């Protein structure tokens, strides 16, 4: 792998994964208080994909995501306080409390929305790519998706269209081996490789280590450069692992769908700790700088939680708002 990245950027990547980890683990710690009253899918263990990918994207690039979108939203630059406020159901939430954890949006940084129907945003991100291509800008549209969503026909339909029109779409598949409690073996044939499948559809693709933020960053950089220069869609498949239960704050390696050992093996490849150890070992980062980074992350996260908790709930009449956008339309 060519070294595409300087030390300042590497520290920034470390900050990115540590920050997401801190957010997710704080949610996990506080979830049982019963104040975050919506289905919440944590991405602990998968932070490197979000951070490595988004580090290659510009603010003006687009991203869409799934039910498990906290990391993508944050890495793309989404407002942390408004995300937490959304999970708390507050009026200051990024979706004014209408959406919750599964429906995050921050258009100011190109995060165009996450939704909770598996596969639901794959064509949406593809359509963003169509619009970019019609407008002739050099934006990239990034679609985050899970291994489960590649079983939906819409995945295949979307890629087919992206290829025909050579759209500037970056498909990022986080293969964490599970869809809820269903292992990939019961859903896809044993020899299936998602990135190979994409190729056979006509989408150039690669696979990478989703727990290694530098690998993610390097492969995505290349893909983004190709897409930006008109090379058409690319799919990257990153292998990674979700640490906590599918939905909710707990661990569930004891309930029988996967083994504690499997989890522990993946924990060895912790995208945060391994990278942190590397940067410290390489003396890219001093002990003090690391502590300072951690302190500032915790402070930011605590502030954001305080903001969320202290924000007002929407007033009941907000129930009737936002069904339609008031028409502006083209002038008559």
């Amino acid at each position: 792998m060519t070294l595409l990245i300087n030390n300042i950027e590497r520290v920034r990547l470390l900050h990115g994964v540590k920050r997401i980890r801190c957010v997710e683990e704080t949610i996990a710690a506080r979830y049982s208080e019963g104040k975050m009253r919506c289905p919440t899918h944590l991405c602990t263990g998968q932070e490197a994909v979000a951070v490595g990918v988004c580090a290659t994207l510009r603010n003006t690039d687009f991203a869409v995501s799934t039910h498990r979108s906290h990391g993508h939203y944050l890495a793309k630059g989404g407002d942390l306080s408004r995300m937490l406020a959304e999970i708390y159901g507050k009026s200051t939430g990024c979706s004014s409390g209408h959406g919750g954890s599964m429906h995050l949006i921050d258009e100011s940084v190109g995060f165009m929305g996450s939704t909770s129907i598996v596969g639901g945003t794959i064509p949406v991100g593809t359509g963003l790519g169509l619009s970019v291509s019609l407008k002739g800008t050099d934006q990239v549209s990034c679609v985050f998706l899970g291994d489960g969503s590649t079983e939906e026909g819409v995945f295949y339909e979307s890629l087919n269209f992206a290829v025909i029109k050579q759209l500037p779409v970056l498909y990022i598949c986080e293969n964490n081996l599970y869809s809820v409690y269903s292992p990939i073996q019961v859903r896809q044939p044993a020899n299936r490789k998602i990135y190979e499948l994409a190729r056979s559809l006509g989408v150039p693709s690669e696979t990478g280590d989703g727990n290694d933020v530098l690998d993610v960053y390097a492969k995505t950089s290349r893909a983004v450069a190709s897409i930006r220069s008109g090379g058409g869609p690319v799919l990257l498949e990153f292998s990674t692992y979700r640490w906590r239960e599918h939905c909710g704050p707990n661990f569930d390696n004891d309930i029988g769908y996967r083994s504690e050992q499997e989890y522990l093996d993946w924990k060895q490849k912790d995208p945060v700790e391994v990278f942190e150890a590397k940067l410290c070992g390489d003396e890219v980062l001093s002990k003090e700088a690391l502590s300072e980074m951690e302190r500032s992350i915790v402070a930011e996260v605590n502030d954001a939680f305080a903001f969320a908790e202290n924000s007002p709930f929407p007033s009941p009449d907000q129930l009737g708002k936002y069904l339609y956008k008031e028409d502006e339309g083209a002038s008559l």
Partner: protein
Amino acid sequence: MKRVLTYGQAINEALCVAMRQDRNVITFGLGVDDPKRIFGTTEGLVEEFGPERVFDMPTAENAMTGVAIGAALNGTRSVMTHQRLDFFLLAMDQLVNNAAKWSYMFGGKSSVPITIRLILGRGWGQGPQHSQNLQSWFAHIPGLKVVMPSTAADAKGLLLSAIFDDNPVVYLEHRWLHNIEGEVPEGDYRVPIGEAQVLSSGQDVTLVSFSYMTIEALHAVEHLEKQGVSCDLIDLRSVNPIDWPTVFESVKKTGRLIALDTASQTLSIASEIIARVSMELFHELKSPPVRIALPDYPTPTSPALSEKYYPRAEDIMQAVADLLNMTLDTDELIQSRTSPHDVPGEWFKGPF
């Protein structure tokens, strides 16, 4: 000077006006640039606006709906066309889970200005999978606007309003209307979504109708008038939102309601009209409200069966007669027809 176009030409003109006015308007769907041009409605578009803005697509209804949604989030206004509503059943997820809810679920941060043109099939043995009228599905979904023009002018005016509406609009055009003619205003003519039109005024009965049933209702009204019965004929034009004030005002005047629909009767738009009127104007009704819609069966293919399946003008006359407790003559109306029951007119030669 009167300028007469067919309904199909009016649709074509609306597309043309919209695309000239706003570069962000595009149109796609199976066949939009093929020789038949969606029954002529997309004539000339690819030539004028180019293959980037007017294009065919893979047979992939669900993804292509999502594509329209995504494009809309970046300001592209798609008009997507399907030659039959039935094909669009594949896209309910994107339409209902995404398009309809996008504005609401993101607290108004963005919205999805897309227009979905769906053609409602009828006749020439279209049968069970090529003639469904599922307007009540769409109208049941909060966040979707649903229009069903009956006249050439409304076909144009509602399509322009749909395209420039900032929300998803389902535009349902009936195959039997494409060749009807009417005066159509030039230029950027818009008909507001959610406003009904009173096509005839009377005292005796309120007929609430839309889409092709309005044509049957107009025949009925004409023949009723000859026999001294006068009706309010309200053409809803939009089935979501529904123009309740216009409906209520008329029922207050006549005290009698017949609701027409092109769909299976149970849970039809006609049901909702009757339910709302019964709840809100119970004491103004002089007699029980009446529904004229299709029986609760899929569409049979054989002409021998479809003949009884579709209610027509004489059934409306008969319902009026029953409501008013009088006898009316439907023979003249029936005898005035020149084409077989399973085609809209002589121009229709199958097989589409």
